[in-house]
């Protein structure tokens, strides 16, 4: 019953089957980030001291160009040789290149400094992209939401490790020796990758001739992908500005190569520490409580403040602070949030899209950033403060785009769920043409009663003008049913033919009364004799007469008929007409209906029909009254009230539900759900009577599922019902889409509701989790297990509990001591 790793699950929110994958991936990220941050410090220090920071915009352009070549090869390689093999190959190439650079720097040729700068950028982009690509295949959407932040911790520790190593080794062995350390770290990743439990490559998809063009069209065709590209592009421009300013200011303050390397290492170290603290204390909470939207907004917001500070006070410390802010958020919440943005993309195209966006946007963004910097520094010779203000302008655009992307992210999940929703088939009626009408008129003279009735049913949809010639024949028809149907068809069109004496004085008295009941509505003046006649017809012994009288009462607004109309809701044969008549009274009958719904003396058969009738009014007043009655009526009636509310909400977006009342109802249902699960769990451990316990457990399962359905209905009252029901149906019938469905829900519900509903849905449909109990519910004995059922409102559970209690009193025989369970 207990979770196998309660500590890990509770504290880290990582489940047992995920633990191995999380640990390996965290360590893998630690190593590649450590290697990258180390080689980056080496590259930066060597470049700015040997070549000079003024040349940085040119090298940014070189990087953008080189990225173009690499991205082309990379996107094809992923599909051709598989992700795992590609990662291994990349690591081996990186190790050999690092050794080559170490040897190359002995020659002191400037070409090596440019080459290392470009190489380090490509190395960082490829390894990080490969890592997150691997991660999205190893974890589904729900797992990703929980574990990405912990995997991200590995990356941050990598930054800390890289920074510390850089600081120490640069001082002791010199800057160039760090390249050997990096080669060692990359070699370790090769060993680690072999230990991944699921090493199957994601299924390859056919590479098109013009794949890049196709991807470009796909990105352009999707508003979501386009916005992602724009956001990433602007972020890269800002990053180029920050990088340039940071290095420019650092070189101006520190002259020694090794000291500069150590300074870069120190900043990286502190960035790592800050990222770690944020990741551990905040990232998961923000992602779970506020979702992706906040996660991708934090970095630009903090950068905006830092850039404005640098513009006001340009110095080594404000530049370092800007770098610290950039690094701290980039490697923690921002990275996790940005990776989540890829999840709504179908897995078949995610590889290629991600590769394309990472590479294409990276090179375009860098190129744009480099060109802008060239223009502003070489062309306009702007100061650090001016550059900061311009960068701040870009950050404002970034924030606006992040807001749009967050909205598109939610919509993408919604579409994914909706596409798989089976929609009800729509039927279209053909318009009657002349030939059809002629055929139907011919049928009216048939000797077969069923054929005549069928033709009348169809013709009743058309104006009686088209079959008036048959009326005399129909009045004289030997079948009472045909005569009655004829009157009903004419009456539905308010045709004055029903007032003819052939109808109202028909020799068959029932036909005459039917005609009288229908004719009353044509000339109603509310005279005493009309009321008297209608009263007598409403209580006629013939249901057909009563049916017509009810219709008339509704049409003429005969208030004295209210009690009868409500009573007739219990009568299967007259319910439809009674409901239609009631609806004709609009608002007026709602208070009476509500009163009779809540009146215990009223027959249950009548009360059961009132909620739907109230729903059909479509009035806010009816919705308010139904909501007020929620959880105040007996078990079955209460469910009908909830169904009626669902119906109203689904029928009209204008109907508003009191959010506080609904939230309180959800809480109540959630408590009931937990209680049922706790009792069931107790019974499973302490079976008291095999058959009876089994029956009770089954009934508890059924009732828990019923409670879940009620919770979903309640949530749908205060959100878009179609979305909520789509999520529920997907969870019930399509396990493969469950994570995406719940992820969507996670993004549309507000924090409090999300905390109550999302875990419940996750647990209810996960067989492993369904055996756990969510909240502390203490069940100590059979008596305490049965007590809530005996006192509860569910009559069926009460029946089983009473029987179980009775048999317990008689003694079940050998059952030993009951175990006491303290559910967490």
């Amino acid at each position, binding site marked *: 019953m207990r979770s196998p790793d309660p500590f890990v699950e509770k504290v880290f929110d990582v489940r047992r089957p995920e633990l191995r994958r999380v640990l390996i991936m965290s360590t893998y990220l630690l190593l590649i980030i450590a290697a990258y941050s180390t080689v980056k410090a080496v590259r930066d220090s060597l470049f700015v001291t040997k070549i000079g920071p003024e040349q940085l915009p040119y090298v940014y352009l070189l990087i953008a160009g080189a990225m173009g070549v690499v991205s082309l090869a990379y996107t094809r390689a992923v599909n051709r040789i598989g992700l795992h093999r590609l990662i291994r190959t990349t690591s081996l190439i990186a190790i050999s290149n690092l050794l080559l650079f170490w040897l190359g720097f002995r020659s002191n040729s400037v070409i090596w400094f440019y080459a290392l700068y470009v190489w380090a950028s490509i190395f960082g982009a490829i390894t990080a992209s490969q890592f997150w690509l691997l991660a999205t295949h190893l974890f589904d959407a729900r797992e990703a939401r929980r574990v990405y932040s912990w995997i991200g911790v590995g990356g941050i520790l990598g930054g800390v490790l890289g920074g510390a190593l850089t600081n120490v080794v640069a001082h002791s062995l010199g800057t160039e020796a760090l390249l050997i350390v990096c080669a060692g770290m990359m070699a370790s990743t090769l060993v680690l990758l072999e230990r991944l439990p699921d090493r199957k490559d994601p299924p390859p998809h056919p590479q098109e001739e013009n794949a890049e063009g196709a991807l470009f069209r796909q990105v352009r065709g999707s508003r979501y992908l386009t916005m992602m590209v724009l956001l990433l592009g602007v972020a890269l421009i800002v990053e180029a500005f920050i990088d340039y300013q940071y290095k420019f200011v650092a070189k101006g303050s520190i002259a020694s190569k090794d000291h500069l390397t150590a300074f870069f290492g120190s900043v990286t170290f502190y960035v790592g520490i800050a990222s770690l603290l944020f990741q551990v204390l905040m990232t998961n909470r923000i992602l779970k409580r506020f979702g992706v939207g906040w996660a991708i907004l934090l970095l630009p917001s903090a950068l905006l403040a830092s850039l404005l500070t640098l513009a006001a006070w340009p110095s080594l410390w404000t530049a370092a602070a800007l770098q610290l802010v950039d690094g701290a958020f980039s490697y923690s919440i921002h990275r996790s949030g940005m990776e989540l943005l890829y999840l709504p993309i179908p897995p078949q195209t995610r590889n290629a899209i991600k590769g394309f966006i990472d590479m294409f946007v990276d090179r375009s963004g860098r190129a744009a950033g480099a060109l802008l910097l060239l223009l502003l520094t070489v062309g306009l010779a702007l100061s650090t403060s001016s550059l900061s203000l311009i960068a701040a302008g870009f950050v404002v655009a970034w924030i606006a785009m992040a807001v749009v992307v967050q909205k598109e992210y939610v919509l993408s999940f919604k579409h994914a769920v909706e596409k798989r929703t089976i929609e009800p088939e729509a039927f279209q009626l053909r318009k009657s043409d002349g030939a059809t009408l002629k055929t139907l008129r011919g049928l009216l003279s048939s000797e077969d009663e069923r054929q005549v009735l069928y033709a009348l049913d169809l013709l009743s949809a058309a104006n009686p003008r088209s079959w008036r010639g048959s009326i005399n024949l129909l009045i004289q028809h030997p079948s009472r049913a045909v005569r009655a149907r004829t009157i009903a068809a004419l009456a539905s069109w308010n045709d004055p033919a029903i007032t003819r004496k052939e109808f109202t004085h028909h020799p068959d008295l029932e036909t005459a009364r039917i005609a009288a009941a229908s004719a009353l509505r044509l000339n109603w003046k509310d005279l005493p004799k009309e009321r008297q006649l209608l009263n007598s017809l409403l209580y006629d012994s013939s249901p057909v007469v009563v049916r017509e009288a009810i219709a008339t009462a509704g049409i003429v607004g005969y208030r004295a008929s209210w009690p009868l109309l409500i009573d007739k809701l219990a009568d299967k044969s007259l319910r439809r007409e009674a409901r239609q008549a009631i609806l004709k009274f609009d608002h007026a009958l709602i208070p009476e209906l509500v009163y009779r719904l809540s009146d215990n003396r009223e027959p249950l058969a009548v009360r059961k029909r009132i909620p739907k009738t109230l729903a059909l009014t479509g009035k806010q007043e009816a919705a308010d009254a139904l909501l007020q009655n929620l959880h105040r009526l007996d078990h079955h009636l209460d469910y009908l009230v909830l169904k009626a509310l669902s119906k109203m909400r689904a029928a009209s977006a204008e109907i508003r539900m009191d959010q506080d009342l609904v939230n309180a109802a959800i809480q109540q249902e959630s408590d009931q759900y937990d209680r049922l699960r706790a009792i069931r769990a107790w019974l499973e451990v302490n079976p008291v009577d095999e*058959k009876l316990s089994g029956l009770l457990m089954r009934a508890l399962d*059924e009732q828990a599922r019923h409670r879940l359905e009620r919770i979903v209905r309640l949530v749908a009252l205060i959100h878009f019902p179609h979305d909520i029901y789509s999520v529920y149906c997907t969870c019930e019938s399509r396990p493969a889409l469950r994570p995406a469905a719940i992820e969507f829900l996670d993004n549309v519900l507000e924090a409090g509701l999300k905390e109550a509903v999302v875990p419940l849905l996750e647990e209810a449909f996960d067989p492993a989790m369904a055996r756990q109990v969510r909240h502390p519910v203490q069940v100590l004995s059979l008596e305490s297990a049965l007590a809530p059922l005996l006192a509860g409102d569910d009559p069926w559970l009460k029946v089983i509990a009473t*029987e179980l209690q009775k048999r317990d009193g008689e003694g079940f025989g050998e059952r030993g001591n009951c175990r006491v369970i303290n559910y967490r």
Partner: protein
Amino acid sequence: MEKDLVNEEIVALSTIDKVLCLQTVDVFKHATTEMLSYIGSIAHELDASKGQVIFSEGDMADAMYVVVTGRVRLEKAGQEILTVTSGQSCGTWALFDDQPRVMTATAIENVHLMKIRSDEFYDLLSDHGEITRVVFRAVIERVNHLLGD
């Protein structure tokens, strides 16, 4: 129309006992336990002694039977087709089709039965639409299974 096996109706089973028995009946397999209690409420209990014919081939079918205890032999043209034991049903199609019986059911030993009359069953369905849905689901599954065979 089949005649009753006994003059006096026996009431030996509680609602719970009826549900426990009905939950193994194929046509009610998708019904919740609460739905089974409603079905149980229209089930009449009957006894048949060893050798007694419960229904005969050619009789008009108007009810299904659930064996509570004992065994019932089903035969067609004198050939045994199946033996129905505790928790199983016979004559189920009578609920959906009022055609003459195609088999004869005979008690092999003293049996206790639950009889569900089709007219009462339809009344129940008209009051409980949710039962109609689950019964239809089981019937469709059964038909699909037969077609597959």
